């Protein structure tokens, strides 16, 4: 009865709900696998997981249309996968193999898959907010209907480029959506210790003439609805949005970080609000059977296992890639 009732006024719909779950599971499985691969010392360099933040990438991943552009950060595995990028390309890049998205040249902090609208992952705080403005400007100028989504963290709101991008986007009325994932920490420092306002993004929206949007980033439905509204507004020429999503990363900032700085109990509290746990229950509330849920989870694990095998088998990139693509002609010649 309750189920039916819910089901009948379900604004999101079965198909999208399953997709929201599928994406969250796939991101979770892929990143847990990435973590295992560190432990096997198969991942060199650094890596930044989004464990616990999957609902945001998934909510936008489902709300964005093919052709829409997204820009994210070094913590971008989730956002890259959420646009449909194959797991193999992502894990391959983390493992710096030839089958990686950039054949190991970029590394985990720069995941890019243009064919999926993933216009790059940026590792120097702030810049990509400005760059996202340019993608949106192009759409506006050419009358193309795509929108640009830009993902970043709470700590990023304190750097100058954030301010310039927000003002610029509003003044030019650009079709860009700024998505702040507030996971309460910059690297190891609580955002509250270094920020003049309690909500680093939401409390600043008014400084750019924007409405204050603060949402539960661990509920994929909430994210999907908010994303859809902002995307529609942007597509219709209504200009940018700034959305602050409250969330939490279950792991450390990067593989190097045991996250000792977290007060006791904080992680546990947030684990209760694990987006996957929340959404599995959501599906059940909507009458989706355990069998369907299991199928999604099984399929996801199969994909990740397959990708892992492929990555382990993949060679490193050929050495002539070292000097390739420095310039647009494919070469690196700075002299004649």
């Amino acid at each position, binding site marked *: 009865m309750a189920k039916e009732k819910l089901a009948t006024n379900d604004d999101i719909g079965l198909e999208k709900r399953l997709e929201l779950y599928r994406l969250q599971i796939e991101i979770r499985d892929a990143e847990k696998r990435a973590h295992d691969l560190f432990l096997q010392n198969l991942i060199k360099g650094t890596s930044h997981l989004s464990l616990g933040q999957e609902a945001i990438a998934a909510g936008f991943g489902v709300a964005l249309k093919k052709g829409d*552009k997204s820009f994210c950060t070094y913590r971008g595995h989730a956002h890259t996968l959420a646009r449909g990028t194959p797991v193999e390309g992502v894990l391959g890049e983390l493992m710096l193999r030839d089958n990686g*998205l*950039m*054949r190991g*040249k*970029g590394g985990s902090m*720069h995941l*890019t*898959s*243009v064919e999926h609208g993933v*216009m*790059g992952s*940026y590792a*120097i705080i*702030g*810049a*990509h*907010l*400005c*760059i*996202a*403005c*340019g*993608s*949106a*400007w*192009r*759409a506006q*100028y*050419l009358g193309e209907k795509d929108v*640009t989504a830009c993902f970043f963290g709470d700590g990023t709101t304190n750097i*100058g*480029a954030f301010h*310039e*991008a927000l*003002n*610029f986007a509003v*003044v*030019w009325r650009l079709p860009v959506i700024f998505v702040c994932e507030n996971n309460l920490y910059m690297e190891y420092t609580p955002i509250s210790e270094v920020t003049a306002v309690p909500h680093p993004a939401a409390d600043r929206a008014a400084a750019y003439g924007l409405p204050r949007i603060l949402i539960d980033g661990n509920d994929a439905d909430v994210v999907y609805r908010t994303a859809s509204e902002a995307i529609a507004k942007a597509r219709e020429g209504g200009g940018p949005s700034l959305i602050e999503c409250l969330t939490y990363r279950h792991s450390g900032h990067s593989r190097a970080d045991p996250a000792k700085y977290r007060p006791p109990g904080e992680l546990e509290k947030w684990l209760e609000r694990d987006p996957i746990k929340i959404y599995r229950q959501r599906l059940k509330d909507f009458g989706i059977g355990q069998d369907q849920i299991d199928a999604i989870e099984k399929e996801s694990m199969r994909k990740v296992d397959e990708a892992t095998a492929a990555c382990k088998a993949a060679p490193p990139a050929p050495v002539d*890639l070292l000097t*390739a*693509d*420095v*310039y*647009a*002609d*494919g070469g*690196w*010649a*700075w*002299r*004649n």
Partner: protein
Amino acid sequence: MAELSYRDAVIRAISQEMERDNNVVFLGEDVAKAGGVFKATVGLYEKFGPHRVRDTPISEQAILGAAMGAAMTGLRPIAEIMFSDFAAVCFDFIANEMPKLSYMTNGQLTCPLVIRTGNGAGVRFGAQHSQSIENWTMMIPGLKVVAPSSPVDVIGLMAAAVRDNNPVIFHEHKALYSTKGEVPDGEIVDTLGTAKILRAGTDCTIVALAMMVSRALEAAEILARDHGINAEVIDVRSLVPLDTRTILGSVAKTGRLFTVEENPRLLGWGAEIASIVADEAFWDLDGPIVRITTPHIPLPAADHLEDLALPNASRIVEKIARVMNG
């Protein structure tokens, strides 16, 4: 053929490219309605309208970020950074974002844009508005770097820069804006990475850039007249790509190399050329390689001190004559 100022050449160059390609757009501070603080973009707003020629806030990071994002998704923006000194407030885009995009993405993306900026001294603007930063940009892998010395080169090299598929920094020299030169009619397109021998000579090679070119030429005439030294003068024009062939060829002939650089001494662009010649043309050299540069100091505002700081014809002559004649 018509006489045109360096300033008007900038306007004509941008017009030529914007007429040719609708994807060429232009943005910067006070560049549209006001025509730019150097009046080097007057009329573009009226001609191409508010969608293609846009005024921005004082937000250099947003300006270059917007240009980059537009470039990687299909446009060919020209962005103005008013004074080249301000490259420092948006240097992340110049050093870390634009030039690494193609490489980091394994060629998935390119960044076809031009950053034009007012570079150089001679206008008594002091230490924060007079720098020659061509060396700041030359050292960054993935960038191309151009610095024209004449109106015709402004047009040809700007056209080449706009048509190039890489980020190009286009250094316009503030003190040259009012200088004039003959410019042919019709479309002008030059080639990046090509130096020009402006004066043929046999005794030594003088390599110069931008405002230093006319001073090197003046010096060469005096050297010939008063010291019997027949200098070959090369306008590098493009620091990246660098036309090493022309430079090495000249040194092979003359056996001596001098650079005339407006940037301060340490790691001025001439250092790279000197190191290339000291390696690849060592056996051609008949004597020391000498760099004539602005001393390694910030620039003073006072006119007599600024004039003293920059290399000029007499300093060039005095130095070269002393080095060559004993």
